[in-house]
């Protein structure tokens, strides 16, 4: 019996605590909960915002495929994936993955796998908007992301 993952693609921010409680509240079979939050980062202090473009429909479908793959590979009691789109300023949340399981190894690996696959397969694209210059630039995909994803094959 595999769980049905919860997948959401939304402009609004998410509440990691509420999502964690959704997977643990009122149950006694969850021993481990791993929560990954990806945030917009700007160490150079030059970024106004990241703009996240997505392919509506396929984004949800692809995240669901990746999440179902994770629930088939690991004995999870719950799995949630939320990815935002639109303009996101530095310090704000972009993506949330919460994996719950009886055992910690499954929860860690499922969340890690999900982020690796999401990075290379979910149809989202980041464009940087720079504060002072007003310029924009598409973020380039990293070879490292493909290597990370290849760890699971």
């Amino acid at each position: 019996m595999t769980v049905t993952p919860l997948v959401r693609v939304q402009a609004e921010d998410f509440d990691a605590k509420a999502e964690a409680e959704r997977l643990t509240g009122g149950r006694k079979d969850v021993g481990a909960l791993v929560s990954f939050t990806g945030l917009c980062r700007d160490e150079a202090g030059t970024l106004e915002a990241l703009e996240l473009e997505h392919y509506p429909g396929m984004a949800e479908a692809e995240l669901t495929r990746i999440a179902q793959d994770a629930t088939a590979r690991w004995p999870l009691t719950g799995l949630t994936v939320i990815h935002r789109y639109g303009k996101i300023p530095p310090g704000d949340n972009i993506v949330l993955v919460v994996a719950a399981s009886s055992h910690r190894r499954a929860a860690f690996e499922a969340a890690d796998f999900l982020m690796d696959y999401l990075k290379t397969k979910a149809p989202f694209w980041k464009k940087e908007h720079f504060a002072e210059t007003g310029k924009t630039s598409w973020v380039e995909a990293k070879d490292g992301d493909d290597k990370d994803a290849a760890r699971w094959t």
Partner: protein
Amino acid sequence: MNIRYFAWVRERVGVEEETIDVPASVATVADLISHLKSLDDNHAAAFEEEDAIRVALDQMHVEPDAILGDASEVAFFPPMTGG
């Protein structure tokens, strides 16, 4: 056939979406890319770095040798950078 573009592919083509008549000789995604490149400079620029283009047929990732078949929607975009 309905064609969608995302990110810098969209910016180079200049439209988000278009419906085009595909000649009978176009069987695969690669054939479609060749056909699109022949349409005008914008399309040619968008598909200039062909290796950098990813394709989805009816919202599923496919390789360039995929047969278009009766797919109703083809999407072209750069490598994904979400997460």
